[in-house]
């Protein structure tokens, strides 16, 4: 390679990254718009009229008080899960890590469900749910940490223990549901993950929490990049690996707990978004983290719009007006397919 083409390559790399970010931001915007338009009660033209300042009171209520907060919550929850997964995969240097499979999400669900079942919290007291989900998330991650013991460094072993921990926590959640069926309807939404009925109070709770932890996560970009280079290399370069890993895990649990407490356990988002982000943006967490946040937002909000479209189609086909597909069902199904592709590619790489 000559000096000139080399310099050109060096200039091209940031430009390509910038273009990708613009594309991702546009996609997030498109997903947000799709989520605003999707739904039965109001056609796209009505939404446009409300956004231009017109529309009748009912339309205004639907768009401004129901659809807008729901879309915003989906975007921020998706960003949180994308970030949490990227942090987990980097800190544990484990491509099979994600909040869903490291006990964080099932722990957070257990926390939220238990607190609701026992009457400490509910949809009416969202702050208490965040706290409960956070405690549960930490308990889940801690349980995995203890169980994995000396095998923590082994991705495959940790994944096995992660599945075990997740199964135990889901079992406990089922027990809580049987013993204290309380607000069963809303609890089921937590189990699958849903943005149904998320309103401004949820948004006001979620965004500051997500913003604070996202900032904390970004501050860890450099040690996380080095942790991906292996503990020995990171330590030799000056990273206190133990402290950096714990700080990263705290951020990941906090971000997951925030998302889970508001939209429930959205399957596969935190596990798969990081793979996309790393494949698109390389290895420097300074660009991968914002990319993963945008991708997560696109995926969850897009899936939400897709789920609503699907609900509409199904309702039409089955001639039933009370049918809604939760967004978690869409992310889980789409995620399972993507996971297969990722797994196939990893096998091919060998």
């Amino acid at each position: 390679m000559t000096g000139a083409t080399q310099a050109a390559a060096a200039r091209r790399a940031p430009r390509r990254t910038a273009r990708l970010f613009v594309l991702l931001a546009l996609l997030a915007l498109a997903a947000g718009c799709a989520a605003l338009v999707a739904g039965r009660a109001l056609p796209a033209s009505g939404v446009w009229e409300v956004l231009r300042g017109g529309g009748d009171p009912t339309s205004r209520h639907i768009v401004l008080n129901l659809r807008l907060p729901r879309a915003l919550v989906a975007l921020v929850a998706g960003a949180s899960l994308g970030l949490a997964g990227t942090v987990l995969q980097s800190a544990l240097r484990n491509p099979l890590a994600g909040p869903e499979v490291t006990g964080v999400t099932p722990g957070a669900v257990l926390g939220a469900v238990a607190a609701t079942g026992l009457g400490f919290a509910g949809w009416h007291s969202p702050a208490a749910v965040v706290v409960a989900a956070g405690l549960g998330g930490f308990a889940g991650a801690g349980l995995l940490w203890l169980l994995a013991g000396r095998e923590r460094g082994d991705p495959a072993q940790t994944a096995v223990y992660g599945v075990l921990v997740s199964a135990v926590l889901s079992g406990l959640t089922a027990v809580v549901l049987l013993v204290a069926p309380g607000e069963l309807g809303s609890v089921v939404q937590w189990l699958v993950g849903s943005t149904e009925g998320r309103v401004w109070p949820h948004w006001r709770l979620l965004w500051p929490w997500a913003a604070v932890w996202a900032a904390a996560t970004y501050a860890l970009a450099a040690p996380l990049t080095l942790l991906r280079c292996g503990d020995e290399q990171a330590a030799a370069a000056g990273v206190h690996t133990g402290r950096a890993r714990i700080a990263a895990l705290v951020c990941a649990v906090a971000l997951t707990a925030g998302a889970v407490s508001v939209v429930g356990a959205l399957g596969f988002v935190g596990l798969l978004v990081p793979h996309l982000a790393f494949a698109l943006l390389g290895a420097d967490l300074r660009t991968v983290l914002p990319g993963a946040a945008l991708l997560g937002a696109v995926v969850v909000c897009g899936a939400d719009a897709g789920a609503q479209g699907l609900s509409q189609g199904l309702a039409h086909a089955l001639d039933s007006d009370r049918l809604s597909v939760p967004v978690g069902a869409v992310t889980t199904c789409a995620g399972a397919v993507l996971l297969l592709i990722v797994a196939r590619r990893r096998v091919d790489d060998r």
Partner: protein
Amino acid sequence: MTPTAPRAQGTVQIRGLRFGYPGREVLSGVDMDVEPGELVALVGLNGCGKSTLLRLSAGLLRPAAGRVLLDGDDMAGLSRRAAARRVALLHQSAPPVPGMTVRQLVRQGRYAARGPLGMLRDGDDAVCARAMADVDVTAWADRPVDSLSGGERQRVRLAMALAQDTRVLLLDEPTTYLDLRHQLEVLQTVARLRAERGLTVLMVLHDLGHAARFADRILALRDGRVAADGPPDEVVTPGLLAEVLGVAGRVGRDPVGGWPVCYPDHPLPAPQDLVK
């Protein structure tokens, strides 16, 4: 801007160093001094404590007893980052990092100097460019590290260690997995940098011939103790081959360079085998 104090010379003093894991003592009292600008080769059998000695010298492990002094400062009193500003350690191997380019990996060497928040901004390009030029990897700056061959990758990792801009450079078997040509390439680069910058270099080598050729001094470890310590001419003898490396053989001279050359013959029965 160099974070090291002006008195930083690169003197390494090791005093009564002991280290072990439960049930197994790895180092049982090691004393050694490395002068500024000296190139010292550590030799010994697998498991004799060479790599452990390097890790202790870099402050990555805490000694059970004894001290590692760097220009008079106890490594035990330094934070991880402060230690990495003064000593760079190149490990034997590193896991692959998908998608990381040469430039990005070398840049990671600046972590100790800049800290987690300082690393968020760009900068220090001059230091990284010099480190890449030092080992002649500038041409691959934007290629993924994974796409390089073993020898090329080892040079890139050496550049990352050089980007730490330290006086002391520790190398743990820098020539493992490399063919002869690339082994010599890496060793010659290290020798040249030592000569140009006055770096203090302590490196673990398996090949006694390389040690005799490139080092000012050879330090032989056996069972966690210093078994021999001196210039190659004095240390490399049939006795060293037998006692430290467990092989019978002869020692000659390179007809042109004059450094000692080993002609290993056959392995000797290990002492513990004799006991059985």
